[in-house]
């Protein structure tokens, strides 16, 4: 087969995600205005102002640096929770598909129960459980970002786990797995060498979609007032500035655009990998 030319969307999405990852790693050490600095001579100025290419918000914070800084929070929260959830969900799904019986019933029941509460509602409840134990002393307890990551991971596990289970189920019936069983391969070996490599690609596309969902849910949490601290992630930037939308719309619309572009790129990858897997399946 000839090396296929990838569509333009693939390069655009890769470029945007690469930029986000770069900002996550180095966003705070770039030679731009600090996201902490308040420029009191230019508060709430629009895009393309001198010194502030994206403008500033009403605290005089440069939006470009705030976006660069916010990438770290939004991307880290999303990627870490989806990665951890993929590992746990993948393991549970494969175990359920392989052991069947009551193990499968229990795991499936856990997935169904969790999925029957809307994602955002469950996350808000989880954040409330883990968040600061004492309203008068908000510093106590786990750091907010850890609370968010744990809650979002918990909520995403069944989404990825269900895919892993159904994918693993479709592979356990294949001839090569039966052959492996009949020649006396151990279960663990079969899982690692035959099941995992086949389940991972089908989880990939869902994982990309889930990463987008997590970024949006995090933004929603920020709007409801239970996200990261004001001005940290893109979502909380938007939540912080949305009261100014009538006088300085760019302060709200720029973080919203950053979220939208990231989700678009992640969705694109999700679709792209799904089509590739479907193509591979139909060629078999």
């Amino acid at each position, binding site marked *: 087969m000839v090396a296929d030319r990838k569509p333009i969307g693939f390069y655009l999405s890769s470029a945007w995600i690469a930029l986000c990852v770069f900002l996550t790693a180095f966003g705070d050490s770039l030679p731009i205005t600090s996201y902490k600095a308040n420029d009191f001579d230019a508060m709430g100025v629009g895009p393309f102002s001198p010194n502030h290419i994206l403008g500033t918000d009403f605290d005089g914070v440069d939006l470009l640096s705030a976006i660069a800084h916010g990438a770290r929070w939004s991307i880290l929260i999303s990627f870490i929770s989806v990665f951890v959830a993929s590992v746990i969900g993948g393991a549970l799904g494969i175990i359920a598909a392989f052991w069947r019986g009551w193990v499968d019933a229990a795991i499936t*029941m856990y997935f*169904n*129960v969790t*999925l*029957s*509460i*809307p*994602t*955002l*509602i*469950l996350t*808000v*409840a*989880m954040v*409330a*459980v*883990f*968040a*600061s*134990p*004492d*309203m008068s002393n908000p510093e106590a*307890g786990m750091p907010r970002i850890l609370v968010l990551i744990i809650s979002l991971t918990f909520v995403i596990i069944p989404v990825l786990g269900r895919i892993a289970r159904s994918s693993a189920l479709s592979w356990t019936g294949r001839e090569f797995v039966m052959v492996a069983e009949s020649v006396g391969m151990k279960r663990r070996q079969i899982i690692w060498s035959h099941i995992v490599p086949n389940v991972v690609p089908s989880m990939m596309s869902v994982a990309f979609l889930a990463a*987008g969902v997590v970024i*949006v*849910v995090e*933004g*929603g949490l920020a*709007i*409801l*007032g*239970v996200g990261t601290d004001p001005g940290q992630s893109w979502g909380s930037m*938007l939540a912080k500035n*949305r009261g100014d*939308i*009538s006088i300085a*719309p760019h302060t*709200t*619309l720029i973080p*919203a*655009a950053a*979220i*939208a*572009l990231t*989700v*678009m790129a992640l*969705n*694109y990858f999700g*679709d792209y990998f799904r089509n590739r897997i479907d193509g591979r399946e139909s060629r078999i």
Partner: protein
Amino acid sequence: MSAVGKIGGIAKQLVRVVVVLVLVTFGVTVIVRLLPGDPVTTLLPFGTPEQHAVLRKELGLDVNIFQYYLQWLWNFVRGDFGQTYTTVADGGVQVRDQIALTLPRTLFLMGYTIIFSLIVSIPLGILLAYKADTRLDKTVSNALFGFASIPNFGIGLGLAYLLGVKFDLLNPVGYVPMTENIAEHFKSMIMPVLALSIGLISTFTRLLRTDTIATLKEDFVTMASSKGLTNKWILWRHVLRPSSLTLLTSAALNMGALIGGAVVVESVFAFDGLGTLIAYSINFRQYLAIQSLIALVAVSYILFNLIVDVLYGIVDPRVRSHRGG
């Protein structure tokens, strides 16, 4: 397919739903009981130990979690959702009354959203499938893909700025009850509904397009067109029904996301609905309210999915016979 088998299938499904319902409500109980901080001291920071003891008993926190759950479940089933404790002096506000006030707003919002999304996406999906791979199809499909990626609160804020501020067409905040002024009621709904439906329209249209393209390749479509039926007749009478199954499932699956979306969009448009109530209860540690509200949402979501499962059998006779046998 025997009648006994069919009833057995339904019974099995009902048992499964009941088990999920019990586990969900019990899980919510565990979550709420795990909420950090002693609710009694949070609610009555300056109370005497006697007052604390009374409130603890009233909240049911003096018994173990199983007794607490059974007590709560008994009240919940009878429609007693507990009360909030912001104003303990006057006995608090009944959660049931709060729900009675906010639920209709959220239901209107969700209902309009689903109806509007389907009205737009059914013709659009069929049109795109009919014109598959033309320039029109590619342009619209790509635009829909882009729109699907914008979070609903992003669309909401964008609309609030464009329609609410720049062109000054609509009031960007608040809700007007239907009984007060029907025209204003619909006007207050336009932006929240648009914010919620753009993502759904995109999902629905893409699904329907894919399924319709698959249906158009079936033999009975070739047969119909060789009989000389018009394209319009074939599309609406022969193709839509078999193609709408995934759409129906997706509409049901999206209800969960829609409730979550409604929570955020309500907050964007300062629209005191069920979502706002849930966020408020969590922020102010209203334990009984949180528990009853989350349980209510989960229970309606599960029952809704059950109904869709049954509808599925009505729309597609093939599923009906498989399930029975």
